[in-house]
C-alpha cells in the first residue's frame, strides 16, 4: 500500500490537508493509482491564488510526503484557484495517460483558463506526462 504522510502533521495547511484526504481516498480505492503514484518519483508544487496557500507533494517510491510551502526543486508547479482545483479533480484520465476529460465542456473551460493565464502549470509542456499522471491521481472521475 502506497503510504501518505503530512510532513507538518497538525500544522499542515488547508491545501495540504485537502490533498492528503483526496489522495488518500483515491489511492485506497484504486490500486492502479497506487502504481501510478510509485511511478511519479518527483515533486509537484501547488499554489492556490484565492487562498494564498502553498504545498509540495513529494512522490517517493513507496510514500507521498505532503509539505507546507513550496519546497524546491519541483518538476511541475501549479498556480490555480479553488474552482480550478475542483474542476481539474473532475477530469477523467483513461489508463493514467489519456486525458479524455479535456474533451468535455469542463475540460475546454480549463484549457481556456490555462490559455488566459489564470491557471498556470509550469512544466506543462516539458513534463506533460507528469501533469497528466497528477491529474489522474487527483481525479475523482469514474
Amino acid at each position, binding site marked *: 500500500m502506497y503510504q501518505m504522510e503530512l510532513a507538518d502533521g497538525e500544522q499542515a495547511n*488547508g*491545501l495540504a490537508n485537502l490533498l492528503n484526504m483526496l489522495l488518500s481516498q*483515491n489511492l485506497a480505492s484504486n490500486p492502479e493509482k497506487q502504481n501510478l503514484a510509485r511511478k511519479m518519483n518527483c515533486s509537484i508544487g501547488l499554489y492556490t491564488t484565492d*487562498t494564498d*496557500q502553498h504545498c509540495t507533494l513529494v512522490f517517493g517510491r513507496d510514500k507521498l510526503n505532503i509539505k507546507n510551502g513550496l519546497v524546491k526543486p519541483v518538476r511541475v508547479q501549479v498556480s490555480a484557484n*479553488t474552482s480550478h482545483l475542483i474542476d481539474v479533480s*473532475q477530469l477523467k484520465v483513461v489508463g493514467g495517460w489519456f486525458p479524455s476529460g479535456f474533451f468535455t465542456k469542463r475540460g475546454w473551460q480549463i484549457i481556456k483558463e490555462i490559455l488566459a493565464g489564470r491557471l498556470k502549470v509550469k512544466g506543462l509542456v516539458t513534463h506533460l506526462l507528469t501533469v497528466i499522471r497528477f491529474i489522474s491521481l487527483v481525479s475523482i472521475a469514474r
Partner: protein
Amino acid sequence: MKFASQEWCDAFKKVVNDDKDLTSWFSDGANFNYKFEIFAEGSGKFQLYFQKGTVDYCGAPQGDTDFILGSDVDTWKKIASGSDAASKLFTLGKLKVSKGPLDIIIRNVVALDKICAKVGLIATEW
C-alpha cells in the same frame, strides 16, 4: 433563533427546500440520498438528511451519518454573510469534512456552496 435548535432546523429545512433550483445544484439530484451531521464549534450540531436531492430531515442527531462537516462560528458567519463560499473555506481548511467520501463533496460543490449560504437567510443566534 439559536443555531441547531429545532426551530432553527425547521427554518433551515424550509429555506433549502423552498429553492426551486435545489435538485439542479447536485451532480445527480435524483440519487442524492445522504445524511450529514453539521456542527459549529461551541455552538451546536444538527443532522441534515437528503432524499432524492431534497431535505427529508433536519434536526437533532438521530444516529450515524455519511458525512460530518463543520467549522468554528467565525467561519460560519463568513459563509452566512456571503463573504466567502463554503468551497473556498474548505480549501483553506476552515470548513472541515471529518467523515465521508470527498468525491461526493467535490462532485456536488455547487450544492455545498449554495446550501451552506442559506444559513445567511436565517436570523441565527450563535
